[in-house]
C-alpha cells in the first residue's frame, strides 16, 4: 500500500517541502519566513491571552496569602471600623446557598435530561434544548431579578396561607443560583447520556427490566462519572457568582442561622435562618473591594484567595479525574 508509506501531514510540514522537490521556487525563503512570522505573532497572542492567569493568581497569592490563617476562616467579620475579623459566616453562607441551589437545580436538570434522551420526541426535545441554550445565555444578574420578584418582593401565598414572608433571604439566593444551574446541568447531562451506547438500553430491555430502572440503574449509572463531573463543574461555576446574590441573599455580617434553643426549636430556627439575609464569599469580596478601608481590601484579597482555591481545585481535580474530552468541552463556560 503506497498510502501507508506517506508521512502524516504534520511530518510533511516540518520538512517544509525540501528545495530539491521545488527547485524553481525562488520565493521559498520569503514564504518560509512568513510562516515563521505567523507562528511568532500567534505565539505572542497566546502568551498575552494567558498572561492574566499568571497575574491574577500571582497577586492573589501575593496579597492574600499573608492574611490567610485559622482566625480568618473561623471568625465573624469585625465590627465596622475595627480591624481583623474573618469570613466564617461567608464560608458557611456560600456552602448553604450552593447546597440550596443544588438541591433544587440538580434533580431538575438530571431528570429533565433523562426525559430528553430516554423518552422525549424529537420536536419536544428540540424545543427544550433551544430553551436551555437561551437560558444559558441569560446574564446571571437577570436571575437575581427573577428570584427577587418571586421571594423578596412578595409574600408567597398558597391556599390562603402565607407560606413565605418577603425579604432578602438565604432561600432567595439559593433559588437564584438554582435557576442558573438548571439549564447548565440539563444540557451537560443530556450530552453525557447521549454517549451511552444504545446496546446497553437494548440489552437491559431484553432482560425484561422495567423502563425506569433501565434509565436510572443502567443508563444513568453508566454515565455517572460524566454526570457528576458536569454537575460539579456547574456548581463550581455558581460558587463564584456574585450578581444574582446582590439583591437576594444580600449579605450579612452575622450568622444567619443561630441555634441556641432546645432541640425541639431546631426546625423553627432553620426556617428562620432560611428567611434571613446571608453572607457569601463573592458578596463579601465585592463589598470589601469597593469599600474605602485598607483592612477590608486586605481581607478581600484573602477571601478571593479562598474562593479561587475552592473553584480551581474543583476544576483541576475534575479535569484530572475525567480526561474525557466530551465532558470537558461541554462544561466549559
Amino acid at each position: 500500500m503506497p498510502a501507508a508509506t506517506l508521512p502524516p501531514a504534520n511530518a510533511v510540514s516540518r520538512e517544509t517541502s525540501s528545495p530539491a522537490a521545488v527547485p524553481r521556487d525562488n520565493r521559498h525563503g520569503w514564504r518560509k519566513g512568513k510562516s515563521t512570522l505567523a507562528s511568532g505573532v500567534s505565539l505572542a497572542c497566546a502568551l498575552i491571552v494567558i498572561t492574566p492567569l499568571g497575574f491574577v493568581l500571582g497577586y492573589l497569592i501575593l496579597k492574600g496569602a499573608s492574611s490567610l490563617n485559622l482566625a480568618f476562616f473561623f471568625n465573624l467579620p469585625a465590627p465596622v471600623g475595627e480591624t481583623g475579623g474573618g469570613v466564617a459566616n461567608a464560608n458557611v453562607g456560600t456552602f448553604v446557598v450552593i447546597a440550596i441551589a443544588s438541591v433544587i437545580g440538580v434533580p431538575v436538570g438530571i431528570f429533565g435530561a433523562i426525559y430528553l434522551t430516554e423518552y422525549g420526541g424529537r420536536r419536544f426535545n428540540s424545543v427544550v434544548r433551544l430553551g436551555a441554550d437561551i437560558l444559558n445565555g441569560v446574564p446571571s444578574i437577570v436571575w437575581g431579578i427573577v428570584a427577587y420578584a418571586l421571594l423578596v418582593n412578595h409574600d408567597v401565598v398558597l391556599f390562603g396561607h402565607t407560606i413565605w414572608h418577603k425579604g432578602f433571604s438565604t432561600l432567595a439566593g439559593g433559588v437564584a443560583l438554582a435557576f442558573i444551574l438548571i439549564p447548565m446541568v440539563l444540557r451537560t447531562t443530556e450530552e453525557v447520556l447521549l454517549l451511552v451506547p444504545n446496546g446497553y438500553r437494548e440489552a437491559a430491555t431484553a432482560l425484561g427490566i422495567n423502563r425506569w430502572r433501565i434509565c436510572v440503574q443502567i443508563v444513568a449509572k453508566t454515565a455517572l462519572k460524566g454526570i457528576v463531573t458536569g454537575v460539579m463543574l456547574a456548581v463550581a461555576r455558581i460558587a463564584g457568582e456574585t450578581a444574582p446574590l446582590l439583591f437576594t441573599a444580600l449579605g450579612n455580617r452575622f450568622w444567619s442561622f443561630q441555634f441556641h434553643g432546645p432541640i425541639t426549636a431546631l426546625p423553627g430556627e432553620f426556617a428562620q435562618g432560611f428567611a434571613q439575609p446571608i453572607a457569601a464569599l463573592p458578596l463579601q469580596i465585592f463589598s470589601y473591594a469597593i469599600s474605602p478601608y485598607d483592612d477590608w481590601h486586605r481581607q478581600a484579597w484573602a477571601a478571593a484567595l479562598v474562593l479561587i482555591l475552592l473553584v480551581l481545585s474543583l476544576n483541576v481535580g475534575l479535569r484530572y479525574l475525567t480526561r474525557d474530552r466530551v465532558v470537558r468541552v461541554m462544561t466549559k463556560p
Partner: protein
Amino acid sequence: MEPSPATTAPVSTVTATSAIPAPVQDTRPAFDAQNVSIFYTQKPAVDGVTLQVPSRSVTAIIGPSGCGKSTFLRCLNRMHELVPGARMTGTIRLYGDDLYAPEIDPTVVRRRVGMVFQKSNPFPTMSIAENVTVGLRLNGVRDRAFLRERMEQALRMSALWDEVKNDLNRPGISLSGGQQQRLCIARAVAVQPEVLLMDEPASALDPIATSKVEELINDLKKNYTIVIVTHNMQQATRVADQTAFFYLGKLIEFAPTRELFNNPRQPQTEAYITGRFG
C-alpha cells in the same frame, strides 16, 4: 398471563451443579406467528409472515441484508417497539399466550423471551458476576444465595464458568470478545427465559470464539428454544434444526435445515444459497 407454564418449575430441583431447569415441558410450538407484518414507514419491513417455531430446537433465519429477518426476530419479544413509530399487525403466540394482547406488559414478554445481540454488550459498570445477575436483581430478586446459585449455573451453561470462576469481580468488559458474548448469553439465560433470540451472535467474533458460541447453542437447545438470525449459511447448517429464508420482508421458505439447503423448493432460496445474490 402470570401463571404461565414457565412458573411451574419448582425451586427445589435447582442445585448448584445442575443446569437451570428446562423452563418449558410444553410440546406445542414455542412461537406461533400468524400473518405478521411490521411497518417502520408506509412500506412493510416484514410482510405477512406466518411461521411456527418448534419447541426446544434451534431455528435459523437467513436472508440477505435488509430482508427483515432482524426485524422479525425483534418483534418476537416486542423489542421493535423501541423504535418510535414502529407498528405491527398479525398475532404472535408464545405457547398459546398472545404476546400482543392489550393487557400484556412488554416487560413480561421480554422476561419470557431473552435476547442476545450482534455486538456483545456487557454493562461496563458491572463485574462479571453482577452482569450475570443483573436481570434478576433489577427485577427485584434479593435472595443472595439464590443469586449466587443462579450465576454459577448460568455461567456453567454458557461454558464460561471455568474461565472466569476465579475473577468474578473483574469488570465484564475486561473479557475477550468471545467471552463477552458468552457472558451476554449467561446474562440472558440467568433470568430463565423460555426462548432465546440471537441476532447474529457470532458475526463480530473470530472463528475460534464463533465455534465456541456454536457449541454452546447446541448445548442450550436441550433446554431452550433458540431462534437465531445469521447471515452465515454455514453457521445455519451447523447449528439449526430448521431454517427460514426471508427475502424482501417475506418468508420464502421454511424447512428442516438439511432439506432447505440440499433441496430448496423455491427458486429464490436456491439462488441465495448458491450465492447468486445477497
